């Protein structure tokens, strides 16, 4: 326990200050007196006795110092003393302090902000119990590329759930929009239709109310809903008695049984969750439709490999029973990977970029401190003359740099706090964005990097400055001082590394910007200007008896769209209105088999070709200015009784009819009877024969980064249709002015159908490239910061060396050197530094930009044009940074310069 008493006593002693020392002095006084008396008794003269007593007692100052060290907390006392001293010095040089703190705040702030994003999005575990056991389960379709992580069908899901031996739970879900009616305005809500064990598989419970029961998967008892916290607040005013509430969704009543907690997070956000139940013989509930996502929980101790073989064995046995399942297997990935894998490369690149910014800031700071050492030379000499040893000075310098970096860190933390408040502007670019905040981990991170930064930039200058070189000379020099050759060499090395770091960072931002420019220059295949879009969702009552043999949409659907489109086109300022089953840039969604009849049929279904399918009506092509390349567009003559016509895109024409005209070719969009397993075709089934009547330009339905897939367009009057398509309207002027009159038309046709997802085509375009744009903006910002810091670094070193060489330049000019040759001399010195930095930076950049390949589009990570461009930019900045001091050098008056000597 004695250490505890000691610590307490020392803290007391430290607080007490000098009182104890006064006591010590008294005590020593008494001791000395006793000694003197003793010596006198032994016969010494009083003089000698006093002298002897002092010798026996020892050096008074030293005893005092040792006593003081024992009495208080010397580490902290020295620390406080050093900090007070530093703050005084900083106040005396506010310019230096401001530059240093701002540089550090930018570096540390950027790192703090970036780290809190990475921490919230990537590092923090998913908010479920044992999230590491959760896996996404997919269907794989042999022979179909791009479908390694496909969806599953309801019967496959149920069989997997029932027969597996490796999962503690398996659930399925799909997202849909539903019309909420009952209030003044119908409203579109996002619903997630889930199997009853969805929440229990994730290991979460509703915050209020109860979970779904397995019996609620039965058709008829499925009219229950769990709602999100936000929905509960807006629609039930946060009423605790929600269980009495009913919701009318797509015309059906649902009782609310639960409310989720506000921080419940899934990658597919929803306002309501409904149990998944199927009407008997519903076509969706068959092996024909693969649209469910699955999430499962591994049993403890089961490896993913065991689960993989377990599920695939089940898929094989399903395929034996149902031949149409041939070639369909199962695959799995950790849930975390599926939800967050997409953003990881971008976040990592940005984190790397801010680390570089901080490194450059460190180099700049080190340089600044070394430059300052010249002015502090005298102070150091005086302190060491007064007895401060090398260690003591070193300690003070390191305290100083850590104090600086902590000040910078504090300001940086504030910067990070405010920049994180801008995060919502990034919208839904980032998953789990609501988890991003400055928590304990982030504060710890900031504290740690502040200290590390302080050491990083402070250590070398501290070692150099604390070496007390020739106290005499320094003091005699009377303030004039030229830094030693080695310090100057060190500063040169710092600037070279700074330019190298800036080169790497600039290469990264250059690549991101050029890749983004590439993306913008991709031809989307349509013209977005003046186009308004919205989607409608027709309730199932529009198609009460789905009939696989029926050709085209049922009369109510046809009537709805024909009426809607013609009435919209009658509005003043509207040019073309059309409808399409799904809009460009919203993802490839609807695939179909494709059998051209001008060649032999494939031997089996799984050898058949695939295309994307879009059902259109009205003036969809005209509205989006999709270019007609050959033949004709679909028009008002393509009606149910007319010959069946399709328009194909260029990619399909190129794939199936390279070098020849596809016009007039006859194709099937559903399998011929001969390829269907016996008994599967409904009686009277005969696939429609379509004639290709036109070829249009490729439209990007998927991401702009990907090539357009082969696509077929048919009129919804002649083939499959969608109950939730989008409407496209080209206006003469601002398309958003049309919204309220269109809403009026829609309400007149069916007041229960809301106008959902109203967006201009330009908004869709811009949000489809939002992530690369954000990356380009951020990397561009960090790159310019690096450029600025590197410029300041070069300027500092060259300016200092010019001021050092003033007399030399004066002599040169006195001896007849022209202004031009002086200019050239200074510039070439700076450019030598810059080009060395550029060389090293290039090598580093070539090695590091490979890590960016995941976020680049259309250019290689070693794109020569980008590298040349950044070299030129850096060279210009270096030239500018050298030019100012160089011009000053040319103005040196030889007489004045020499008089200084």
């Amino acid at each position: 326990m004695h250490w505890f008493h000691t610590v307490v006593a020392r803290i007391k002693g430290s607080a007490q200050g000098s009182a104890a020392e006064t006591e010590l002095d008294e005590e020593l006084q008494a001791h000395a007196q006793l000694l003197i008396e003793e010596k006198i008794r032994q016969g010494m003269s009083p003089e000698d006795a006093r002298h002897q007593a002092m010798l026996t007692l020892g050096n008074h100052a030293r005893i005092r110092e040792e006593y003081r060290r024992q009495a208080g907390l010397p580490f902290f006392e020295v620390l406080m003393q050093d900090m007070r001293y530093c703050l005084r010095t900083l106040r005396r040089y506010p310019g230096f302090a401001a530059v240093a703190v701002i540089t550090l705040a930018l570096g540390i702030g950027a790192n703090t902000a970036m780290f809190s994003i990475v921490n919230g999005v990537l590092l923090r575990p998913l908010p479920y119990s044992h999230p590491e056991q959760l896996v996404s389960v997919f269907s794989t379709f042999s022979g179909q590329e791009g479908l390694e992580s496909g969806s599953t069908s309801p019967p496959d899901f149920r069989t997997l759930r029932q027969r597996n031996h490796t999962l503690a739970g398996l659930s399925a879900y799909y997202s849909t929009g539903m019309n909420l009616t009952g209030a003044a305005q119908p409203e579109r809500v996002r619903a997630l239709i889930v199997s009853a064990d969805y929440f229990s598989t994730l290991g979460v419970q509703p915050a209020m109310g109860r979970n779904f029961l397995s019996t609620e998967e039965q058709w008829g008892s499925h009219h229950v809903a769990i709602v999100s916290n936000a929905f509960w607040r807006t629609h039930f005013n946060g009423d605790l008695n929600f269980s009495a509430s009913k919701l009318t969704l797509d015309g059906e009543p649902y009782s609310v049984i639960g409310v989720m907690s506000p921080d419940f997070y899934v990658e597919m956000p929803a306002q309501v969750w409904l149990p998944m139940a199927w009407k008997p013989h519903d076509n969706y509930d068959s092996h024909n439709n693969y649209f469910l996502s699955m999430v499962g929980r591994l049993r403890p101790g089961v490896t993913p490999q065991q689960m993989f073989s377990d599920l695939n064995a089940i898929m094989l046995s399903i395929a034996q029973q149902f031949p149409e399942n041939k070639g369909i297997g199962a695959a799995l990935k950790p849930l975390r990977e599926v939800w967050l894998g997409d953003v990881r490369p971008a976040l990592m690149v940005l984190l790397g970029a801010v680390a570089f910014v901080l490194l450059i800031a460190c180099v700049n700071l080190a340089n600044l401190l070394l430059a300052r050492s010249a002015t502090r030379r005298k102070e150091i000499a005086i302190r060491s003359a007064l007895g401060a040893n090398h260690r003591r000075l070193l300690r003070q310098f390191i305290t100083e740099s850590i104090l600086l970096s902590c000040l910078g860190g504090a300001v940086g933390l504030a910067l990070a706090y405010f920049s994180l408040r801008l995060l919502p502007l990034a919208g839904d670019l980032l998953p789990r964005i609501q988890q991003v905040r400055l928590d304990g981990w982030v504060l710890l991170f900031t504290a740690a990097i502040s200290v590390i930064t302080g050491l990083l930039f402070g250590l070398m200058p501290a070692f150099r400055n604390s070496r007390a070189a020739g106290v005499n000379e320094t003091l005699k020099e009377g303030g004039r001082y030229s830094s030693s050759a080695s310090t100057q060499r060190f500063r040169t090395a710092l600037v070279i590394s700074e330019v190298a770091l800036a080169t790497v960072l600039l290469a990264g931002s250059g690549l991101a910007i050029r890749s983004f420019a590439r993306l913008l220059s991709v031809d989307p295949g349509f013209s977005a200007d003046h186009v308004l879009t919205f989607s409608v969702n027709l309730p199932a009552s529009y198609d009460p008896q789905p009939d696989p043999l029926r050709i085209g949409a049922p009369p109510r659907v046809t009537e709805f769209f024909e009426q809607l489109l013609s009435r919209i086109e009658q509005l003043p300022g509207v040019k073309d209105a059309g409808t399409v089953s799904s809009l460009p840039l919203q993802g490839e969604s609807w695939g179909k088999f494709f059998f051209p009849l001008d060649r032999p049929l494939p031997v089996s279904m799984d050898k058949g070709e695939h295309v994307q399918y879009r059902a259109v009506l009205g003036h969809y092509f005209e509205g989006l200015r999709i270019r007609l390349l050959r033949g004709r567009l679909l028009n008002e003559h393509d009606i149910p009784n007319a010959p069946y016509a399709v328009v194909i895109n260029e990619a399909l024409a190129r794939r199936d009819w390279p070098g020849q005209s596809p016009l007039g070719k006859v194709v099937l969009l559903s399998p011929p009877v001969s390829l269907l397993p016996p008994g599967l075709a409904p009686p009277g089934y005969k696939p429609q024969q379509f004639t290709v009547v036109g070829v249009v330009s490729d439209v990007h339905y998927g991401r702009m980064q990907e090539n357009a897939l082969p696509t077929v367009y048919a009129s919804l009057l002649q083939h499959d249709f969608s109950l939730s398509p989008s409407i496209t309207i080209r206006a003469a002027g601002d398309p958003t002015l049309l919204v309220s009159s269109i809403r009026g038309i829609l309400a007149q046709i069916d007041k229960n159908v809301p106008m959902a997802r109203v967006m201009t085509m330009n908004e869709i375009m811009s949000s489809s490239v939002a992530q690369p744009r954000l990356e380009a903006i951020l990397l561009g910002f960090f790159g310019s910061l690096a450029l600025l810091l590197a410029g300041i670094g070069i300027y500092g070193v060259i300016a200092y060396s010019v001021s050092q060489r003033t007399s030399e330049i004066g002599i040169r000019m006195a001896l007849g050197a022209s202004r031009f040759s002086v200019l050239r001399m200074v510039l070439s010195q700076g450019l030598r530094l810059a080009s060395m930095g550029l060389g090293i930076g290039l090598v580093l950049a070539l090695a590091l930009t490979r890590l960016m390949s995941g976020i680049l589009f259309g250019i290689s990570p070693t794109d020569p044009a980008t590298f040349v461009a950044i070299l030129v930019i850096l060279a210009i900045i270096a030239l500018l940074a050298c030019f100012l001091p160089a011009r000053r050098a040319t103005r040196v008056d030889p007489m004045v310069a020499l008089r200084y000597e």
Partner: protein
Amino acid sequence: MPDAKTDVLQGTLDLMVLKTLHALGPLHGYGIARRIEQVSDNLLQLNQGTLYPALLRLQQRKWITAKWGISENNRKAKFYNITAAGEKQLAREAENWERIAAVMSRLLGGAQEV
């Protein structure tokens, strides 16, 4: 400062101070120094000032206490006294020291015999 040497000295000095206070009761710094020199037959010449940081250390550990009093020459002086905890520490340290001394003497004696 050569730390290793001071540490040995400190530990030894602490023990000597405790033993002196144990044997003689309350004493001031001068008295302690005199006593140590006498017992060592003046073989040990202390820098007597170094006693004071050691006394402070022992106080901080609550092994001794200090009180102002009047010395034999009628001057104000601080008198130190050993505490119960100090007695315990003394017993522990003395035993420890004797063990080491025994080992050392056996070791050194044995070396001579070879």
